[in-house]
């Protein structure tokens, strides 16, 4: 066995690696959020504000929620706002990086074609020129450059790359029937609803859970599968993959309602043969961040950490530490849109009402690791489907990788590329996992990633010229059983006086559609209260 592997590796590297030696790690950096600054926030050891900046509306957090809020305000012609971001660059989970070869994602890498009810997402895409024609059409036309090119997905199992991510080769007796039954059940859930909306709508605010489906939020997806008689190992693997992919959480912990929502929630389709292809770009969802941030010159301030927030006399006082200037600033805003992770709010706002704090408390977040592998050339083809955009390994601790150069149109044989490798630390308690994420040196992660990918690509070590590891400490809210609790979500939606909350945390599902919805909704509420009728309602 080992002899085979050795011989194989030696030959397949087209001989180069042998001369170099095979075990050395490629160089790279450990990257990620400003954890030190983030962790200082709750401790209050910041100097008093040195400057006061009045502003009508302050948006805290420039992730998708904050950027969407700013977009909505600008769309209505409202410009008196500022946007503060703790990190050095905007985007949150949709941040991206540039390289001489190709821009590549550091987080979210695609956007499913939006549902009809996701009006804000559709309006945004139409504004960016990617959705063409009528944004409210059942199947709008999308710019082909952003539709994921074929082949889109492949799965490595039994030494062969299968097309698609649902295992369909080498299934045991009965597995195929269970797969068919499972997807039929999901189609039924998808169709569920009444005249006011679908049961599993997306954004979640439009969902209409009834008594029977609400019961799904009282058990885990794993328990639901058991109760329904689904025991196919391939199906279980696939569903756990889906939960880890969308929620960063193991299917033994995810609420069955959320797990089913993954399959029943999305109805978006495109016209002209687009089907349900996803939208993507070399930088993942970073292109949306880039385009929105370009419209915010002078309004978007990065490296500003909000460490204090008080409401008094019709104003909100927001103290922020400027990492670049080494001093604190005080923003005096009439209105605040809190578009940062909700768990930070109790840390910086001592006045926060206890019932709101109690509605925030149950939230927990999954940590993620995202690695950028810079390759001298794409990995060798292997058996089966050729290199796709999304490439997943069966039974891997990771979720596979996406290829940044996939959307390029090239006559030449493929050259250097960047692979983005995803791994949620979903197998343990999130606090412990987060500590491990912070404590583990890059070399350990790099070795683990190369070994994992090495199962399918024996040449990965010799091809990788650089391997950066990006850490997201609080990447995704975990939709555990009970997350759907209507009273708790309603409390979050009510906000806190002049402070409106807008974050995917409000839904408990870290999805673009959710972040966008809450950001746009907060902006629309604010515009309505400022007087005047809205020309359109998107959320």
């Amino acid at each position, binding site marked *: 066995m*080992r*002899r*085979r592997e*050795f*011989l*194989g590796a*030696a*030959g*397949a590297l*087209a*001989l*180069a690696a*042998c*001369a170099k030696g095979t075990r050395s790690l490629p160089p790279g950096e450990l990257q990620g959020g400003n954890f030190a600054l983030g962790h200082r926030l709750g401790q209050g050891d910041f100097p008093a504000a040195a400057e006061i900046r009045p502003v009508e509306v302050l948006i805290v957090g420039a992730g998708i929620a904050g950027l969407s809020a700013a977009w909505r305000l600008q769309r209505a012609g409202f410009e008196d706002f500022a946007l503060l971001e703790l990190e050095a660059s905007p985007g949150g989970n949709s941040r991206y990086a540039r390289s001489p070869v190709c821009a590549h994602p550091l987080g979210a890498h695609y956007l499913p074609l939006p549902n009809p009810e996701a009006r804000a997402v559709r309006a945004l895409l139409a504004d960016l020129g990617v959705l063409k024609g009528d944004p409210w059409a059942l199947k709008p036309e999308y710019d*082909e*450059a952003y*539709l*994921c*090119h*074929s*082949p*889109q997905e492949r799965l490595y199992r039994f030494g062969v790359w299968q097309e698609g991510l649902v295992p369909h080769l080498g299934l045991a007796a009965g597995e195929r029937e269970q797969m068919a039954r499972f997807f039929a059940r999901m189609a039924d859930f998808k169709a569920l609803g009444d005249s006011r909306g679908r049961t599993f709508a997306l954004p979640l605010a439009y969902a209409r859970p009834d008594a029977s489906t609400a019961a799904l939020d009282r058990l885990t997806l794993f328990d639901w599968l058991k109760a329904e008689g689904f025991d196919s190992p391939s199906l279980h693997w696939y569903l756990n993959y889906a939960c880890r992919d969308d929620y960063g959480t193991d299917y033994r912990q995810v609420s069955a309602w959320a797990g089913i929502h993954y399959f029943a929630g999305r109805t978006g389709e495109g016209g*002209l*043969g*687009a*089907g349900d*292809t996803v939208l993507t770009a070399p930088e993942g969802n970073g292109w949306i961040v880039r385009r929105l941030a370009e419209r915010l010159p002078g309004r978007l301030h990065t490296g500003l950490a909000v460490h204090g927030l008080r409401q008094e006399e019709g104003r909100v006082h927001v103290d922020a530490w400027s990492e670049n200037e080494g001093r604190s600033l005080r923003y005096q805003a009439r209105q605040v849109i809190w578009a940062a992770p909700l768990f930070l709010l109790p840390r910086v706002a001592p006045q926060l009402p206890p019932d709101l704090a109690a509605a925030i408390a149950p939230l927990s977040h999954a940590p993620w690791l995202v690695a950028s592998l810079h390759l001298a050339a794409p990995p*060798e*083809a*292997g*058996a089966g489907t*050729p290199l796709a955009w999304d490439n997943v390994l069966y039974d891997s601790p990771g979720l596979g990788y996406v290829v940044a150069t996939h959307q*390029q*149109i*090239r*006559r*030449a*044989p*493929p050259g250097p590329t960047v692979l983005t490798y995803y791994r949620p630390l979903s197998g343990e308690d999130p606090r412990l996992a987060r500590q491990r994420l912070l404590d583990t040196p890059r070399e350990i992660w790099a070795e683990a990633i190369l070994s994992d990918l090495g199962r399918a690509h024996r040449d990965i070590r010799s091809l990788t010229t650089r391997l950066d590891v990006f850490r997201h400490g609080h990447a995704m809210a975990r939709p555990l059983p009970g997350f759907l609790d209507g009273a708790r979500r309603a409390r979050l939606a009510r906000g806190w006086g002049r402070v409106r909350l807008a974050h995917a945390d409000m839904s408990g599902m870290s999805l673009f559609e959710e972040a966008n919805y809450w950001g746009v909704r907060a902006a629309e509420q604010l515009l309505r209260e400022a007087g005047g009728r809205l020309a359109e309602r998107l959320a």
Partner: protein
Amino acid sequence: MQHALLASVFIIASCGLAYELVAAALASYLLGDSVTQFSTIIGAYLFAMGVGSWLSRYVGGNLVRRFIQIEMLVGVLGGFAAVGLFLAFAAQMGPFRVLLYLSVLAVGTLVGLEIPLVMRILKREVAFKELVSRVLAVDYLGALAVSVLFPLLLAPYLGLMRTGLLFGLLNVGVAVWALYLFRAQLPRSRDLYLAAGASVALLAGGLAVAGQVSDTAESWLYADEVIHMESSPYQRIVVTRWRDDIRLFLNQNLQFSSRDEYRYHEALVHPGLAALPGARRILVLGGGDGFAVREILRYPQIQSVTLVDLDPAMTRLFATAPLLTQLNGNALNDSRVTVVNADAAIWLEENGEAFDFVVVDFPDPSNFALGKLYSTGFYRLLARHLAPGGRIVVQATSPYYARRSYWTIVATLEAAGFRTAPYHALVPSFGEWGYVLAGREAPGLPTAYPEGLRFLTVAGTADLFRFPADMERLPVEPNRLNEQSLVRLFEQEWHGAAR
């Protein structure tokens, strides 16, 4: 005794890896696409080794005797594999890939038998734990030695054939050594001695003549005399000549025969361009041989021709080699012609120029990367470079052999907003070939052609635009980037046609 056998394990391992590397390197050299060749050859070889290891359970009797026999067999078979394959390829004897994989499987199986046998022989003297650790350690060392030596010394200085033969000799050497070491256990073994002597003689003789063989064999690769051979980073370029027939092969695929290329290139250029008397600026994508440019330059009103071809080796060759510049009328050196060596899509993305007539002459859509060059997305990009009233012509594979592929390309141009005029021409070297003329308005037919054409006539042109029943239009979907239906169809159709 034990150390002697371990030393022989070292040699065996070196030989085993050497045969594998020689086969993979030879396949890449002859067939191109080294990643595929290395990957599939190594896969087949490792599989065969597994088969050999498994078969070793059925090897009984005098193990030492069997081991010596296998060593001699591996030596001769493995040693001559490269020579045999090269000659077979050159002489076009039988299906080359079948021979290639048969030889890889045979040698791999024999190599797979070796280590289990050595371990069984040594088992008598050494405890199992020790045995496994020592044999496998030495085995790896042998493999490492060759994997380092092969690219640095063996392949560049000895060449593939001599490397194969040399390791064959080493393998037989192990057999001879074992004959000596175990002479006490091998009574009445005259046949073994004879066979060993014959193997050594055969391999040594092979080594002696290998130089001559490799010198002459590549010219057999082609039916005709090879007049130019060159490997660029993109492809292997070979030009052959037999009397007045000059042929160009890229990665062994025929690109043109000088006997009938005029049919292909006249049909590619003139039905579109002759109907555009106002055309001044022309763009050619692909077509580094300069034949399309030669046809374009027949029109006196042309002011500029931009040729965008990926491979500088191609355009250099067709701008400098006297025989070839004679064929393309020295078109690439014409003052009106600008040669750009760039990737077509990148060049289109980065340039804003508009053209009156665009010739798209890409390789057939045989993989996902090439398939993108026949997509609605690519044609929309191209449309941005088309001047008002301009036309595009696309080489569109064979409407006879790949009927659905051909009509998919037509449907794709239409989905990208073009009006099309599909047509075809018979090029004997290729068979019935298809083109698509496209423009924002419906393309009209020419009423006159330039002087000196050998194939096209005004009277015959309408026939090119008529498709007989077996090539008639089929209802097919356009080739969209998110589906790439064309690549899947093309694969099915040409695969079916080849059978």
